[in-house]
């Protein structure tokens, strides 16, 4: 092997020299290493940044009721109500509140305000010829939105997006100002789609706020009732009497001594299910959960008259439940026996109250 000879007279190469003049490479390397190590040490030793507390909101059910002010469309079967549900227009007007909970934030901006126009009339006051006897029951759920703003600055909310109330998403405009370190509440009436063909869905909600208002938007935490698999309609079903989707309106209701006589135009004598005792029909009639002592007078060509025998049962003494204004009859329908809800009105409530004060 031949080893090349070194030329000992030639000038040496520029050394990598520790501190050799001319090259900035080593200097730069030391600076970068120092910066990196310093940053790492700083990151490891500096205290953790305190968490921030963004605004948060919850949605719950405040009230549930049935709006039975519209007649059932003639094409609809009485057994299958078609609730074309929309978000209540009132909700869009309703959302004007400030962070002052004593004033408008807690004021109900819906149809429940005193003096607002309401559609119900007592059955006995209605004109029999003008009143349809089969009605379309539409569920109305009043949702309560509560917003908490833990931050120091104010928060202005502009809209609430709701999923699971109807088959499509609903956007409710809001104008809700929540001051720093304060909370605000607003009530929003919605009409869920409870038509029989609709798949139940849990409710989801998201708020949007003005840009620069501390948050662009955030999810709302619904209460347990709203995230049940059955959705809003299962809540309505559990709180409303059976048959609320297609109630009947009593043709007439009047007190007769301690009895109440109710005329139900829709039911023919063939349709009322009950017991015959001594040749007299004993229809199965419930007011709330009370089975009433009832007889029926059925004459061909005339509307059936139910006579609710007094003294009436005082409904659930000590209970805070409302006193019924509806009856439930059992009628044959769809090859079986189905409950039909009959709206009687205040005459029934008065009759049920007859014996309560004694």
């Amino acid at each position, binding site marked *: 092997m031949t080893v090349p000879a070194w*030329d000992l007279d030639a000038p040496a*190469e520029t*050394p990598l*020299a*520790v*501190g050799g003049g001319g090259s900035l490479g080593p200097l730069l390397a*030391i*600076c970068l290493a*120092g910066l990196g190590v*310093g*940053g790492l040490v700083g990151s490891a030793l*500096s205290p*953790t*940044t305190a*968490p921030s*507390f*963004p605004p948060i909101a*919850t949605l719950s059910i405040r009230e549930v*009721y*049935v*709006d*039975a*002010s519209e007649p059932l469309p003639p094409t609809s079967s009485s057994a299958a109500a078609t609730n074309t549900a929309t978000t209540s227009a009132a909700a869009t007007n309703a959302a004007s509140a400030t962070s002052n909970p*004593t004033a408008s934030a*807690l*004021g*109900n901006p819906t149809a*429940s305000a*005193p*003096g*607002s126009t*309401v*559609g*119900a009339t007592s059955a*006995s006051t209605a004109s029999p010829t003008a009143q349809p006897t089969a009605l379309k029951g539409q569920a109305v759920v009043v949702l309560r939105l*509560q917003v*908490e703003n*833990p931050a120091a600055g104010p928060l202005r909310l502009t809209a609430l997006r709701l999923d699971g109330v109807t088959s499509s998403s609903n956007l409710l405009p809001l104008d809700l100002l929540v001051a720093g*370190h304060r*909370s605000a*509440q607003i009530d929003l009436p919605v009409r869920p789609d409870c038509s029989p063909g609709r798949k139940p869905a849990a409710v989801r909600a998201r708020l949007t706020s003005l840009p620069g208002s501390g948050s662009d938007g*955030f999810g709302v*935490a619904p*209460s*347990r009732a709203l995230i049940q698999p059955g959705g809003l309609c299962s809540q309505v079903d559990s709180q*409303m*009497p059976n048959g609320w989707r297609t*109630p009947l309106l009593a043709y007439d*209701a*009047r*007190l007769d001594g301690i009895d109440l006589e109710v005329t139900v135009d829709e039911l023919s004598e063939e349709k009322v299910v009950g017991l015959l005792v001594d040749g007299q029909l004993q229809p199965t009639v419930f007011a*709330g959960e009370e089975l009433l002592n009832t007889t029926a007078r059925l004459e061909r060509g005339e509307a059936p008259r139910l006579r609710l025998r007094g003294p009436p049962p005082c409904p659930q003494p000590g*209970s805070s*439940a409302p*006193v*019924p*204004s509806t009856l439930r009859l059992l009628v044959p329908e769809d090859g079986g026996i189905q409950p039909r809800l009959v*709206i009687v*009105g*205040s005459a029934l409530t008065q009759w049920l109250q007859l014996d309560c004060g004694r």
Partner: protein
Amino acid sequence: MRRPMVINLAPGNNRRALSFVLIGLLSLTVGYIGQGFWDVGRPTPAAASAIVTDVVGGAGSRKSVRILVSLAITNTGTAPVQVFKPESRGDGTEILALTPSDLRVDPDRIGRVDADVTLDCDRPEPLQLADLQLQLTDGARRPLQINGAGMVLEACSRASTAVRPLAATTSVKSSADDGRLAVRLSSPTGRAIDVLAVRAGGVDLAMSPTTVTLAGKSSVVVRLTAPTACPTQWRVTGIPSAVTVDLRSDPATDLRASADSGATVRLRLGSGLTSWLLDRSCPERG
């Protein structure tokens, strides 16, 4: 062929080595301070909040009631967080356990946890839940305030009469003169309470005076005005025998948002209310 490079380690270069060490130390210092100044390498701060969504239980005759409080925890940060039960008692409350005991909430998610809570309903001061513990990714724990804790008063409204936040009696006689229903409200525990709204079957009843503050055990008479027509809300559900009241425990001295939130309690007024509403709003004209 050129002579290979030879590193010069002559003693005269010690000064240069020292200068490199100094430059290294200077860079280290700049790196340390710069990291703190520009937040280089520091994780985005966690962003989480908690709120009461449901209050279950409370019925019974004991002064200290056991309830289940459902909480929602939102995480709008970029790192997961974990939630643990408080280390101490709250004001008149104690969270005994959380289910699950260590809830993990991923970013942009809402987590749910149930708290087993005891309440001293007879306490005259506002009830306040203690802060949860929020554990960050580095293991540090920070307090997490529970918003909407005023709702726990709803549980006390189902307890025995003596410890309820609000009590009411009606007088049919006093309502006869001007058509309004006189309701005498009191706070059995003496806890300061603001009454914000009164509803019957979902319908607001106008109050006079419009806002009522109860302090101590003295009572206040409120006159309620019935709707002028029978509301559609009552058509299927029936005529109410109870009212629901929005109330708020005195928040004046506390800037925490949760102290500002209220509760909704139900007060049974019985046939006096039903008869009055039938008479004023839904008269039978047969």
